[in-house]
């Protein structure tokens, strides 16, 4: 007779998360994500100044600005690649239906997957950007430790929130898609729209008219796109040049408000994803 043990909720979440991490590692996505982030962080730290014709370590604001600009493209893409098949893949394989016959709830499955995918991206982001911070702390241009640590803490925290937001967006699309190819196609289109097209439209709006109504609308539009929110948070946090967002001369949002909006995005998406999963018939 076999022993059956009643498992607490957290233990089941951990079982699912461990399996997801193992699966991702074997699929080599984790290696790819780690390689991209480390390469990105080291290039921006060591070679960032080469763009300006010098070969010295760039300033803190310059490193943060460079990392932010590239991260806006890379983090959503990494999150999508890591998690697009989380549900549609299991549904195609038949394991999602099987899993739901086990004594594990849909919320636990969602939490386990999120813990794994979020954990992988957190480790990649924290280790790579943390190494950039360490280099600046040791060889930097004299910025105080406090400045460097607070700027990088904000960068890492906001990068992780952006990663989780895109993981949840991927889950939503994965839950709504009938096949893996369609899920990844939809997500890449969404990435293209949010990361590239949205910003271009924003710029167009700013250049066309800088009146109060347009300014108000642009500020609102920033809140409606997590990638712009992320960019604004880090530019403001590190007092870095705002780039395209620098056109926001009458920038009205404070850092706490931007951070709160980011968290609201996360909570809203988590609620929505869970709801969609709970209603899904497998």
């Amino acid at each position, binding site marked *: 007779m*076999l022993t059956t043990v009643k498992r607490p909720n957290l233990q089941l979440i951990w*079982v699912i998360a461990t399996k997801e991490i193992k699966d991702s590692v*074997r699929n080599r996505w984790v290696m790819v994500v780690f390689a991209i982030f480390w390469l990105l962080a080291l290039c921006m730290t060591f070679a960032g100044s080469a763009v300006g014709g010098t070969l010295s370590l760039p300033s803190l604001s310059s490193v943060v600005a460079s990392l932010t600009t590239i991260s806006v493209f890379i983090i959503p893409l990494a999150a999508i690649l890591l998690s697009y098949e989380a549900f549609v893949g299991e549904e195609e394989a038949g394991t999602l*239906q099987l*899993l739901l*016959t086990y*004594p594990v709830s849909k919320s636990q499955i969602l939490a386990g997957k999120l813990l794994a995918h979020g954990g992988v991206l957190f480790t990649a982001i924290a280790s790579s950007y943390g190494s950039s911070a360490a280099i600046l702390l040791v060889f930097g241009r004299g910025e105080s430790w406090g400045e460097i640590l607070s700027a990088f803490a904000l960068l890492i925290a906001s990068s992780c929130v952006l990663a989780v937001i895109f993981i949840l967006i991927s889950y939503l699309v994965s839950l709504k898609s009938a096949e893996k190819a369609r899920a990844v196609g939809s997500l890449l289109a969404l990435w293209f729209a949010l990361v590239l097209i949205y910003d271009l439209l924003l710029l167009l709006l700013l250049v066309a008219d800088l009146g109060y109504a347009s300014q108000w609308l642009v500020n609102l539009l920033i809140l409606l796109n997590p990638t712009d929110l992320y960019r604004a948070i880090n530019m403001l946090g590190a007092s870095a040049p705002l780039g395209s967002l620098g056109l926001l001369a009458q920038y009205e949002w404070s850092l706490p408000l931007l951070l709160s909006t980011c968290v609201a995005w996360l909570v809203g998406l988590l609620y929505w994803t869970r709801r969609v999963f709970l209603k899904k*018939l*497998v």
Partner: protein
Amino acid sequence: MSQMAVTFNQVSHYFDELRALNDLSFSLPGGKLMALLGHNGAGKSTLIKMILGLLDPCQGEVSVLGQTQNPASKAASTDIGYLPENISFYDKLTGHEVLSYFAALKGVSARAVAPLLEEFGLAYAQHKAVKGYSKGMKQRLGFAQAILARPRLLLLDEPTVGLDPQASQFIYHKLKQLTDQGCTAIVCTHELQLVEPQLDLALVLGRGKRLAFGTLDELVLNCGLGVHMAHPALAGLVATHPLLQSFYRDGDLICPVSQREVLMKYLTLECQLFDVKVTLPDLAQVYHAKMAQMQVMSELGLSLTSGEL
């Protein structure tokens, strides 16, 4: 009378306009093997999902292992083992890792995994990625997964499709062992010849409706199919025994199941034939007869609203 493992009481389920199950009732006693038969879209998957608690009936009640089953309650889920059709496990994980994962989710001790892999002849490949497993190995792994917690009810959806005869035989051999130990099994299959020797009961569904339910003998009787009786001396006896003439066709006697006993007695006592070869209609004939009846009803515009055909 043994306790009922599964009871459907006037269960109906609709997907928008489509009536997937229509007023279905049956009771499956514990320790029996039931074959779940029907054409594609007959409602078999819906029925299985209801037993598993993945779908709620729109009408009626589903009771599994003594509990009312619905998606909100998973009380019986450790007592139910399930092997879905065409499952493809996590390709990158090894057989041992896959089974350990499901064991952990079901609260089964990790120590149970290795002996189970041994029992299913997968010990030699337990550390190989599932991607490299053959179809038969994957099915055996799936079966092992289904019985991890030694369930009281086992649901197998097309367990032998695409398998070679030896692998199919292995599956049914294991299934027989389990039912002998008191486990109730429901096998959804189109491979009628394979399931026939094992089944205790069969449920035939057609367009969401119960077409037939019972033992093979009951189904044969219910279908009105004939029993074949063969003997080399029959041709000579027909001329002298007028009773046999009404049953004689193409060298054999063909009689309704209900008259089999009487005819056998007649052949033994009156004709002195003791070694008559009796062939009952098989499951495939029963199935095709039921499907044909359903088709005729449909063509006549008669709806399948109540009772069996």
